[in-house]
């Protein structure tokens, strides 16, 4: 209950402020460019009852979620290996840090040529962007673990596998989740970009299609839908983090 309150209050406050700003802007722009918030929200609520909207929402959600899962499955273990072993780090980190400043989005044409125009490419480009963030955060997190903690596990007779299980992995988890959460916004942005071509599903398509038809109400249905997806992804990462890293909860009190 307290948990729900903690989420609801800031959200409703944000929505109120946002509503007034939007309303003011809609009144200022007299032409039909910007629909009034109640019209847009009305259209959005109506569309919530249509299969069409949910089809797009689920398509986008699936892509974003798969991208997060792939990024995590690849980057988390690799980040731990780099953080824990100097040898692995020496081998991989020059490559990682040289390519780190490259905006991964520009690799999209390459990915499209290799993996085709379908969902796989759309998912992979987001995974690539997210994966880098998770990789670097986890690697630095593991490097920063106080040696005393590892010694304490070792002194109990732990083998290397147990050292990872009881030490490196739990130490790395919060870093990985924070990276995932902070970058969920970026993944939605990239999602919008990759859904604007070569597909007839997804909220990005919904927005671009409505825009082309000058159907601004529908366009805002797409925009609000993407915002909703962003919120859902962010909060899921948040809740998952709280379940997987319960010690963080008590520390923050």
């Amino acid at each position, binding site marked *: 209950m307290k948990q729900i309150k903690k989420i609801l209050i800031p959200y409703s406050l944000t929505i109120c402020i946002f509503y007034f700003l939007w309303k003011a802007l809609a009144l200022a722009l007299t032409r039909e460019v910007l629909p009034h918030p109640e019209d847009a929200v009305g259209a959005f609520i109506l569309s919530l009852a249509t299969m069409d909207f949910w089809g797009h929402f689920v398509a986008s959600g699936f892509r974003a979620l798969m991208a997060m899962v792939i990024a995590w499955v690849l980057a988390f273990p690799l980040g731990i290996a780099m953080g824990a072993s100097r040898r692995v780090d020496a081998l991989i980190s020059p490559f990682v840090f040289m390519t780190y400043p490259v905006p991964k989005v520009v690799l999209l044409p390459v990915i499209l040529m290799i993996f085709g125009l379908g969902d796989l490419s759309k998912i992979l480009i987001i995974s690539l962007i997210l994966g880098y963030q998770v990789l670097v955060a986890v690697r630095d997190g593991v490097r920063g673990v106080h040696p005393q903690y590892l010694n*304490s596990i070792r002194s109990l007779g*732990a083998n290397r596998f147990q050292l990872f299980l009881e030490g490196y992995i739990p130490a790395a988890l919060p870093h990985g989740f924070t990276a995932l959460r902070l970058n969920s916004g970026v993944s939605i942005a990239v999602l919008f970009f990759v859904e604007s071509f070569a597909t007839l599903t997804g909220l990005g398509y919904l927005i671009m299609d409505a825009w082309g038809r000058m159907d601004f109400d529908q366009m805002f249905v797409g925009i609000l839908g993407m915002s909703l997806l962003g919120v859902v992804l962010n909060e899921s990462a948040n809740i998952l983090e709280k379940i997987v890293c319960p010690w963080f909860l008590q520390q923050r009190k």
Partner: protein
Amino acid sequence: MLKISNVSKGFNGKLVLEDLSLELEPDETIVILGPSGCGKTTLLNMISGMEKPDAGHIEFNELTVDSPSTQIAFILQDFGLLPWKTVLNNVALGLKIKGVAKKERTEIARRQLKDLGLQGREKDYPPVLSGGEKQRVAIARAYASDPKLLLMDEPFSSLDAITRENLQDTLLSTWKTTSVPYLLVTHSVEEAVFLGKRILLLSGSPSRITGVFLNEDFGRPDFRQTDAYFRLIRTIRKQMGESW
């Protein structure tokens, strides 16, 4: 049972400990006193099997020590409790690593915590505990895996005087009931005299054992109030003044 013969250890070409020999009997307790940086932690690391001596030999119950084992429990300087595990799981960790089933290790850990007056704190995480509570958890964890020898690295140094004496009493009474021998490292002469049946001074560069004191009245009730206690403290202080 513990036999250290002619052990030397250095780092980066600088010798820290030189030709150190020492034996610990099964019913004994040893306290090592020495200035900061003289190699006390290094010595305990080698006994626990976490580090290897450059020269010499360490034997525990006739077996060479070359890696950490559950026979020897080590309470690290600054606790070494894992912040991501509950108090209960911290205490049970040694048993988990040993492969003890969950139900059994939880039961043992609970009992151990109860013995140290920490029931009700099982689900807390170490960062919310006080210094003294953390230290009691660390002691509980050390005893949980039924060790044959206990190593302690300045276990009470960050505590206030009252808590410190309370925990010294706890340690002593635990020793009397379990008779698990311990080797404790400290900066405090009072602590050394209260907890050590034998007290060793470690000093010099590289360090050697520069003094050995037999504490005949060790473990007597109200020892802290007796003349023997103060006499030994004075003797050690005097020797320290000469050799440090």
